[in-house]
């Protein structure tokens, strides 16, 4: 179409991150659909018109259709003079991954070490990792908060914290 609307009908390129997100979603849908094909067949009398695969497959289909539409959303918005600002354009900084690693270690260590040592370790490590260098507040925070939380949960809410190496304190 030529004429006045020329600018708005100029070809728009798909955003690479949208294509990547759509591809990831389609891959997830494919894996989930494949999983539904492995579920054992259910006799009709038991399924009562609602076989266990139907509802999940409907959802998977809906997500797949929406994933296919995803790259076009930005194009359509830009064509209409708008923009799709979803954030996250900048790369995640390394500190995110280091923080994720520390909290993963904390979760891994929870049943081994017990709640109190893990809380103390994270309360000291995370502030240091995030650039805090006031050592006295770190120490007070690193000891005070975990003890307060432990007392609240173990004594106040009667949560069993008697697991891991430090669990003996609570048994």
């Amino acid at each position, binding site marked *: 179409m030529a004429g006045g609307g020329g600018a708005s009908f100029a070809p728009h390129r798909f955003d690479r991150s949208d294509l990547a997100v759509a591809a990831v979603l389609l891959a997830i849908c494919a894996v989930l659909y494949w999983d539904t094909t492995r579920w054992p067949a259910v006799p009709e009398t038991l399924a009562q*018109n609602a076989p266990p695969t139907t509802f999940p497959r409907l959802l998977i289909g809906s997500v797949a259709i929406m994933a296919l539409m995803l790259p076009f959303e930005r194009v359509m918005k830009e064509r209409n003079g708008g923009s799709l600002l979803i954030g996250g354009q900048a790369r995640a900084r390394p500190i995110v991954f280091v923080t994720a690693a520390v909290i993963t270690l904390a979760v891994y260590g929870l049943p081994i070490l017990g709640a109190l040592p893990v809380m103390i370790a994270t309360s000291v490590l995370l502030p240091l990792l995030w650039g805090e260098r006031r050592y006295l507040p770190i120490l007070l925070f690193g000891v005070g908060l975990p003890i307060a939380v432990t007392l609240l949960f173990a004594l106040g809410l009667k949560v069993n914290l008697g697991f891991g190496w430090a669990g003996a304190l609570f048994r």
Partner: protein
Amino acid sequence: MDIDAILTGISLIVAPESLLLIFVSVVLGVVVGALPGLSSSMAVALLLPFTIGLNPVLAISMMAALYCAGTFGGSITAILINTPGAPPAVATSFDGYPLAQRGEAGRALGMAAVSSVIGGVFSLVVFIVAAPLLAKVALKFRPQEYFALTLFGLSMLAAISGRSALRNLIAGALGVLVSTVGIALVTGTERFTFGIPVLYDGIDFVPVLIGIFAISELLGQSQAVDKAKERIRSVALRLPSREDFRRCRATIMRSSVIGTLIGILPAEGTTVAAIMGYNEARRWSKHPEEFGTGAIEGVAGPEAANNAGTGGAMVPTLALGIPGSGTTAIILAALMMHGLRPGPYLMRETPEFLYAIFTAMLLANVMFLVVGLAGVKLFSLITLIPRTFLWPAVFVFALIGAYAYRQNPLDVWVMLISGLVGFFALRQGFGPAPFVMGLVLGSLLEKSWSQSMIIFDSNWLRFFESPICNLFFALTLLSLAGPLIGKGLGRIAQVGMRAFPRRSTLEE
């Protein structure tokens, strides 16, 4: 009206222990609301494990009180440092901060508090009248109508605050999909367990909620840069003068109505209400040019609307079991966690529950006015808490809270994985609220769908025999196609206006 139920409901809340816990929730809500980055949704999610041992009525009352107070709390930092503590307070900063810069922070805070209380109380009156009526109507709903209603609730995700309607819908659908993990109730088939025994019982939503609200935000905060904020120092909350009140009363009432109606709509939250409240305040103002430079109506409008949204959002949550906002989706999850069945049956079987929540929210509104009046100076100081201590503390509470819920280390892993996935999803524009709504509503959607299929003997067309279903399906289509219809109408209007030789007043 059931006087016994009213008295029982009130008596559950006015007990000293209940009052203390509600007061604590209010203070916590104001603090959390005031702290940028911490949201009332996150606070309610973190509060979930603490309430396990409590009476369900008290547990939900605490969450509702925190929700109200958190919505108000966001205005403190929005006005004082131009950093809204919570998304619903974004619109408050447009005029609140310029007022504070002019040395009128106390006046802005006072108007924010009073407007919030009026908006909150108005919505509670609507809540107490509308919820039982809605529940009475919903009692007549059959599974097919429930399916259509839930579908409509989920379709509203297309319109909730967020930058991408499609991403909201995908997040909601993924939430529903996650709710199908585990053994199917009707047939006993293992679904999406991939042979992992711990998934047989499904994925519990409490650790997921904690993960996606607390851990993903923590990871986001890890890369935040500390910015020096210009702090307004002389702060003393001042109740509005007669002149200010006279100037704002129409705005407050209008915003209260808008906020309540927006809150009642499934999935629409207080942020949308606040922005609409602000826009309408400007549209109806005699001095729209003052907006953005410190108009007092610019504070009253969004604050009345966002707090009215809290009471409004509780209407579909309690009457229908369909959350009115992201935070009420967590409250709905809490109801289920306490073994209660949200929806009309809750109202019929335990009407005192409704009156207890009403009393708690009413008290919360009064309390945050008192707390705000007495402690605004203190609350303005909480922004001084360094991020480097605040977020590790959030992690400690999330870690131990996720474990304490069922005293199962697996829940802590679920929380962590949800947080990690949530962080990367958030970066790609997938909001946590749509996912949570899908997760919480998923079981209801599938159950009502399965029951309908049994009733209909697999004949899908029979859904259209019900006028209520047709109404909800039409509303679903409208909410899904709303943005497109809006654009189409806009274009038609523009084309029509171009036909006129002079600019029409509509275009102006």
